[in-house]
């Protein structure tokens, strides 16, 4: 026994060592490109690094204390929450509806699915430029069309709610395919037998969807909502291109505000502190997603 077991353990050990070695480049890449900057960001957040005023490299909690009384930060959190809530809700609802619709399409028309994926492939800056022109009354073909019938389309980008709506629309347009993809995959995992059984029992299509399909989709829906929510904390390109944070400061989401503090006001330390806050929020949600994922898969 011992004679047989020994070489087998040796082979396994060799193999595992090989695998570990193969992981080295990935660990190095993550270390260099993610962990090192993250440590730097935490260090800056506790410092007094200012590009113009000068830096004495005194470390402390002053940036975090300042955050508590910063009205612009509170405003930015409110903006971020609005953008995230409406954006994620729209993306999940529209993505799911289209996924359910596309699932019923069979044959050669299945190719049409690709069409719905296209917005996801467009770079965010290009998406923002497209929607900026669509929401600018003097440039927009939509306004020109309605003008023909004497109907005036309101200027969305000049009011607080309108500008938030415009950014949510642009964000939804480019990100609903992500929700759609996940839900489509989840739908494929649901056995058609269940729907057939419900039909035999006399359930209508709507009832089957609400009482059979939807509960089975719940884990995927929750997952996609949380993933999109984490991503939505990083709102930037749409705001930068479409409104520059305006009107006034009504679309200055927290991520954009951190940028303004860092590159506009030169207050790198304070910008880093805001970024740390965002990071912790995202990490908390990511932790929850991981736990949830574990529960769903086991």
């Amino acid at each position, binding site marked *: 026994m011992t004679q047989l077991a020994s070489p087998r353990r040796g082979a396994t050990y*060799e193999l595992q*060592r*090989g695998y570990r*070695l193969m992981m080295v480049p990935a660990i190095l890449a993550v270390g260099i490109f993610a962990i090192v900057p993250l440590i730097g960001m935490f260090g800056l957040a506790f410092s007094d690094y200012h*590009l*113009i*005023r000068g830096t004495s490299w005194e470390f402390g909690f002053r940036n975090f204390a300042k955050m508590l009384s910063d009205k612009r930060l509170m405003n930015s959190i409110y903006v971020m929450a609005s953008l995230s809530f409406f954006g994620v809700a729209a993306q999940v609802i529209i993505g799911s509806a289209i996924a359910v619709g596309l699932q019923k399409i069979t044959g050669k028309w299945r190719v049409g699915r690709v069409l719905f994926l296209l917005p996801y492939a467009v770079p965010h800056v290009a998406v923002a430029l497209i929607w900026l022109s669509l*929401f*600018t*009354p*003097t*440039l927009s073909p939509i*306004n020109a069309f309605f003008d023909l019938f004497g109907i*005036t389309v309101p*200027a*969305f*980008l*000049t*009011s*607080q709610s309108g*500008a938030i709506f415009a950014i949510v629309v642009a964000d939804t347009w480019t990100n609903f395919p992500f929700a759609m993809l996940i839900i489509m995959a989840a739908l494929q995992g649901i056995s058609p037998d269940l729907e057939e059984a419900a039909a035999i029992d006399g359930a209508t299509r709507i009832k089957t969807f609400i009482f059979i399909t939807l509960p089975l989709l719940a884990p995927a829906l929750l997952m996609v909502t949380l993933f999109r929510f984490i991503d939505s904390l990083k709102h930037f390109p749409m705001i*930068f*291109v479409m*409104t*520059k*944070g*305006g*009107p*006034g*400061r*009504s679309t*200055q989401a927290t991520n954009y505000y951190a940028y*303004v503090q860092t*590159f*506009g*006001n*030169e207050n*790198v330390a304070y910008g880093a502190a805001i970024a740390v806050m965002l990071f912790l929020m995202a990490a908390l949600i990511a932790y929850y997603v991981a736990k949830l994922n574990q529960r769903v898969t086991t």
Partner: protein
Amino acid sequence: MKHLFTTALVGTLALGASFSPTFAQAEEINVVMFGMPFTNGLKELAGDFEAETGIKANIDVIGQDVFENRITLSFTGATGDIDVVHTPVIQVQRWIQAGWLQPMTDLVSADTTSDILAGPLGAYNVSGDQWALPFFAGVGLMSYREDLLEAAGAEVPQTWEDMLEVSAKITNDDQAAIALRAVPGQGFNMFIFPMVMRAYGGTFFADYEGGDLTPAINSPENVEALNVYTKLINEYGPAGAGNFNFAEVNAAAKNGQIAFAVEGTGIISQIVDPAQSKFADVTGIALPPGGPAGRSPAIGVHGMGIPADAPNPEASAKFIEWAVSAETVSKIALAQSFPDFTTASVAENADVVAKYAAIHPDFLKTRVAALDLAIGHYRPLIPEWPALGQAIGESVNAAINGLMTAEEALEQAEADMRDILGL
């Protein structure tokens, strides 16, 4: 395992061998600029510089929006990867204070500097040193539609007060009168709004020239100016004008949607160019309106500087001297829409004069008149200006879009200024 390491070692050596010839390559410099007619023209002439000097210039022209981030990261990281950098005059004090630029006083010849307009050149002379050489001086001008003025029986407005009256006459359901930059930003609405501020006697500080930098943005003069600015945009501008930047103003003028544009020379020269606008033949050029305190056209100067960490400042200076030479600038002025040159002798080039006279006979003349009126510190030349301009611009935009009154907006701006200045 042994094989794995041998393969890795051989691979590394092979890669190293294939890269090693790059060390023996000819001298190279990296130039980072943001997109303007001059920089686009310069990029096309990079081959001329290499032919003349043997130095290869990699000219990277990027969007103005991303430029700031690109260079801030490079400068704070002291990477030394930029040899020549686009240096807007409003940034120069900040960059000097941050230690991001090196002086070029001894690197450029008197022959070069003596051919550059004294005003723009002097703007880069700080504490007795020359920190950049200018290539662009844009000033605020006004374009107006002669046909619409005639139909309304009105004269070209000389003051912002006149502008309100004339705009009221022109505006109807199908025709807006004026578009002005409204988007927040020190280079956006804060390039145009100070023209109105200064016309009404408003200032940013209690006494900038006397050295008293106590914020004075909430003065009654500034409130009055902001009310005028807001009224012009909201009552006499096209729909959505509260989110306009220069691109939208330019498009609105070229599409005939407005009668007046008050813009920098770069945009005005396009609006009056028959090749670019179908209304060019009925569009005139004038000085921007003034007010009780006179007329103060906007001024923006751009130049090229040498970053502090640039490894070969001599090569950088050689490039800058070539770029602002009469020969290079004339070529760009002829190839691009670029009447904003600061190299004096280019104005004597008959082809250049003929080209811009053909676009509009009054163009060069009005530009010189506006340059004469413009004050160098139109936007304060202090290191904190970019942050101040951003904050004030946000408040001005909030007032334009009705989120707060002019008084409230400028009170907020005053508080932000104190915060940024650490007062």
